[in-house]
């Protein structure tokens, strides 16, 4: 009897939790398969569900969506570049700090953490100004660099934590055998760090894919912006074809959701482990 009661209580919590979580996502989906009339009538389920919106998006047949594929490609390019560069920069740094114990490494890591603690919208403004003086405004390089700078501190921190857990004896044995630092990195460190590296690479990639503000500030031409900004360009229009934009938005939301679900065990473990330790 007590078991049944417990189960009942859990279900009573689960129902509002799911409603709250899924309502806007469900709404996004409903709009994406609605025609104009059903959309304006605020239907819970469209009268005549249609895939036509997706067709229009695919063929870029609306002036709001003339650069859909290009912007989708931009999103991919920026996210993958950010993931790879962050991984490279952070893996090197974590190795230098944790295994080579380079002088000043810890100080740099602590300073890096401060980046993570500057509110994102606040850092964006001086960064925009700096990009202007580097002559990088409206280039994707600017956005990728910004994303690497934002993702790196946490990446270094998580990788350093993981690296510290590897036994010191491994290094000592390798050094006794005459291994150079580079060999130590390649033959001992990299193979053991792979799981954490996957988590960090995906973390940076998702961060860049999902970013709106920095992309919106640093890039302006319609052909350079990622899809997030492309979709946001119509915010001021009251009569925007929301069903079309939602169809495009759904397509935009699918890759991160799929990646996240593919790696969710590693992600949740890897990302929360760092946070909980503090």
């Amino acid at each position, binding site marked *: 009897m007590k078991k049944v009661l417990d189960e009942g209580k*859990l279900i009573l919590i689960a129902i509002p939790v*799911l409603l709250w979580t899924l309502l806007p996502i469900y709404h996004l989906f409903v709009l994406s398969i609605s025609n104009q009339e059903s959309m304006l009538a605020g239907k819970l389920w469209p009268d005549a569900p249609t895939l036509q919106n997706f067709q229009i998006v695919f063929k870029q047949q609306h002036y709001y969506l003339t650069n859909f594929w290009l912007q989708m490609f931009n999103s991919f390019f920026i996210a993958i570049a950010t993931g790879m560069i962050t991984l490279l920069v952070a893996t090197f740094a974590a190795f230098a700090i944790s295994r080579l114990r380079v002088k000043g490494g810890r100080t740099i890591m602590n300073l*890096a953490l401060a980046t993570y603690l500057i*509110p994102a*919208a606040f850092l964006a403004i001086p960064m925009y100004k700096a990009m202007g003086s580097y002559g990088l405004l409206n280039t994707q390089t600017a956005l990728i660099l910004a994303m690497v700078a934002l993702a790196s501190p946490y990446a270094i921190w998580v990788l350093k934590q993981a690296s510290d857990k590897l036994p010191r004896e491994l290094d000592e044995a390798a050094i006794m055998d005459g291994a150079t630092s580079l060999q130590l990195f390649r033959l001992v460190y990299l193979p053991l760090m792979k799981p954490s590296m996957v988590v960090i690479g995906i973390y940076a990639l998702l961060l860049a894919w999902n970013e709106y503000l920095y992309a919106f500030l640093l890039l302006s031409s319609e052909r350079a912006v990622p899809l997030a900004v492309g979709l946001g360009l119509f915010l001021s229009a009251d009569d925007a074809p929301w069903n079309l934009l939602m169809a495009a938005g759904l397509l935009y939301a699918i890759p991160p959701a799929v990646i996240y679900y593919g790696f969710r065990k590693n992600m949740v473990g890897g990302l929360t482990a760092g*946070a909980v330790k503090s």
Partner: protein
Amino acid sequence: MTATTMAAPALPASKSSDAVSGHTRDRALWGAIMLAPYVLVFAVMVVYPVGYGLWLGLNWNSYRALFADPIFIRTVINTIVFLFVAVNLKFAIALVLSGFFVAQRAWVRFVLVLFILPWAVPSIPTILSFRVMLNPENGMINQQLFHWFGIVEGPGWLTDPTLAFCMSIMVHIWKSLPFWTLILVTGRLAIAQDLYEAASVDGASKWQQFKFITWPSLATLYVTSTMLSMIWTLGDFNSVYLLTGGGPGDLNHVLSTLGIRYMRNNNLDLGIASIIIAMPLILPMVYFMVKRLSKGAE
């Protein structure tokens, strides 16, 4: 490293000490080379911009102009209310939900997987979905209120200033709740289960178990997370901008959207000034967090 070698006389002394001293030089060199890319990124993307920003922030006229802007005071009040309500509400809910999600059931784990969605998907489609859904005329919410309850004129979710502000907070919580719930779930899972078993043998109620076992174990994590969440909430631009654009009538800006608004209007000095104003609020938190985090990293 040298000390270790000397403490190991069994090894052939000459060979190993050569290897080690050679390694020390090699290590310093490669350490510097491998740290260099990050140091470069940090210098170019963080140190220089922040320094430049602070320098631009030395212009007293911008502060005078800032305080002369009627939107500004309203924005400061909004920001404080937003921070206080959003962070506390979020963590109260996260604390309760983390108790639900630690239940060892397959279906609860499945609910957790769905619950993470808002955090995993980008803001733009989901917040725009909220925006359309809450449209007072033809949004789904008011249309359904009409359909089911005959309410001809539903609430002006995004046209009434107070309601619109509440909706921004709601969207912010919707987006960031999963992450913090997950952190608290992880925190709860780290608590030794036999404490609970012993307590229930002693006849402690659920509330007593929470009060004497769960809360004391979670308190540090809870405080640290709250601090971090405050900083991130302060930097949240999307929830306000994408939902209401700071409106209606510029009444609902927070510091992050106001700064960007100045900047987009080619008034960078005011943009910089409006974020420097927040420094007394941020710096103590940053100091506290860096101390906490670097201790945790040891």
